[in-house]
């Protein structure tokens, strides 16, 4: 079976074929013959040429948290429905327009007002999380369309603090 993932911003294809009690694995132009076993719901033991590796793996909604010998990865699923390139471009554009906090926190200050023109790199809002203040900067030149949060509000990283629009000229 072929599997596709995104890890460290890289698109990776990996194949696993069952052969007897072993698996033939193709990844990064390498081929391995391995014995793979679940030790528990979150621990996978991989035996390649008598070398045993213990991999810790935790399923989350859009990928896996994985720990292997001191290194950690987030291995993201490739959404099958979103394979066309256009949608990812659209998504990137949408990300620019939708201003979100990088992590959940409290809005300390909104630095702009609606209808205001903003430059690239201009501070839009200050969000505090874990005693650290983070400035949220604009990644585009445009106009503030709508502001959804005000100072004192708690925000998460999924819902936008404000929405920008491109300048109509």
């Amino acid at each position, binding site marked *: *079976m072929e599997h596709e993932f995104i890890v*460290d911003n890289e698109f*990776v294809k990996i194949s696993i074929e069952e052969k007897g009690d072993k698996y033939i694995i193709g*990844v990064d132009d390498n081929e391995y013959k391995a014995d793979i076993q679940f030790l528990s719901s979150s621990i996978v033991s991989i035996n390649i040429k008598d070398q045993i590796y213990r991999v810790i793996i935790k399923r989350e909604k859009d990928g896996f948290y994985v720990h292997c010998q001191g290194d950690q990865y987030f291995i993201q699923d490739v959404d099958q429905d979103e394979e066309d390139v256009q949608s990812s471009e659209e998504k990137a554009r949408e990300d620019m327009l939708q201003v979100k906090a990088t992590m959940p926190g409290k809005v300390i200050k909104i630095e702009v007002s609606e209808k205001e023109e903003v430059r690239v790199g201009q501070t839009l809002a200050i969000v505090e999380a874990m005693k650290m203040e983070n400035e949220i900067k604009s990644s585009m030149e445009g106009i503030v369309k709508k502001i959804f949060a005000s100072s004192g509000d708690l925000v998460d990283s999924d819902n936008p603090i404000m929405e920008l629009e491109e300048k109509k000229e």
Partner: protein
Amino acid sequence: MFKKILIANRGEIAVRIIRACREMGISTVAVYSEADRKSLHVQLADEAVCIGPAQAVDSYLNIDHIIKAAQEKKAEAIHPGYGFLAENPLFSLRCEKEGIVFIGPNSKAMDLVGDKVRSRLTVEKAGVPIIPGMKCIYKEISKYELEANKIGYPIMIKASAGGGGKGMRIVHSQEKLKSSIEAGMREAKSAFGDESVYLEKCIQEPRHVEFQILADNHGNIVHLFERECSIQRRHQKIIEESPSQAIDDNLRNQMGEVAKKVIQATRYNNAGTVEFLIDKDKNFYFLEVNARLQVEHPVTELITGLDIVQHQIAIAAGEKLGLKQKSLNQNGHAIECRIYAEDPQNNFLPSSGKILFLNEPSGPGIRLDSGIYSGCEVPIYYDPILSKLIVWAENREMACQRMIQALDNYVILGVRTSISFLKDIISNSSFQKGKTTTDFIEKHFSDWPGLKKDKKNRELSLIAAAFWTQKKGYKPEAQERGQDGRTFSPWKTLGRWRLGRSEKSGT
């Protein structure tokens, strides 16, 4: 001895204090904010009182609420931990007024050591070396020149209103002094609106070395040797160790005696730490007194075999210090790494969320002071410290190796942590040679992560993910809804499998 103590803190330090109380047969009262109902310290204490909303100002920093909780629960003493109210003289004064014992220094000493200018004046009078410099501001450059000659080059120009390195300049010779002072003044003016600058001796290749002190209420003072805390990021200590590689027995004794002198001069009692800077010529200068139990106290506990928290409690209860300086020894080597919920690959942004998987390292010489458990949430409101990993070994080299292994076996999934960054520091050859100065991170790790992760580990991780996907997880036949019926995750209900359900898999 006390029968009941309230712990006015959260996280790993609250857990640490609860442990000490348990061993002493003292019952414990935890306090918690609304965001911490499920935090570890709340589960471990004998009683727990909610003291307000998530924001620290309304809970952990709310003196009235904490005092009220102590009175309601009839706690005889309060241990403040570190941070929050630990060094607030108003809080210790209030405890004194309400007849509750504050486990820490008396409020007068705390007030004094908290004031940098006053405390430096006080200890200087007692003959303690402080960083040579002047606080006077002049108009004429010639006066600065005279002063600079007195202090000796290289010299540091600092902004009076200063902070954050703005207006700061190093001058190596007299020729450059005038132009540097002028430039410093301009920078200070634009940064702080105040152009005044002063001179201070420039400490070259500075190391941060501090002495742990215990002082009882009867005038007995001992020092428990030093900790070196030079490994800092943005002035925040991240790795601490003892013994320091910078000092020998002779200097150790000398500094230890000076540290005791500081404690005497400031009439300080209970546990405290006297901080020094050491320059490359082994001159040492007093910085300040930390009037609390410190984050890095376990390092000292491992090399001395003493329990500092239990001593703190005994001292606060009025007991005499049974320790004699002569019989104290530094044994082996200890290193501590602070594990923060932050993303070293993304500018050390704090990371919050749920701990999905936790494997804690164990083995000979490994101690973990932790405030988390598998399944707990790391809230966004507080300091992002999750735990402290401390190792002890016969010597420094072995301690480094032990730490690297322990960090490798420390698995926290769900939130980003500083573990990989810490491992790279301990593995660094300059660190292993003991060349630790306060600019170590800036010097060696400013472009981190420069090292690529191990390619093999990446492949193995991908294999595991592909295997998981292909097998649809462990025991694919056992699928179950989450308890609330909204989210599907077989992992949330681990250990309570119901067989034979045929829900559509969320994966």
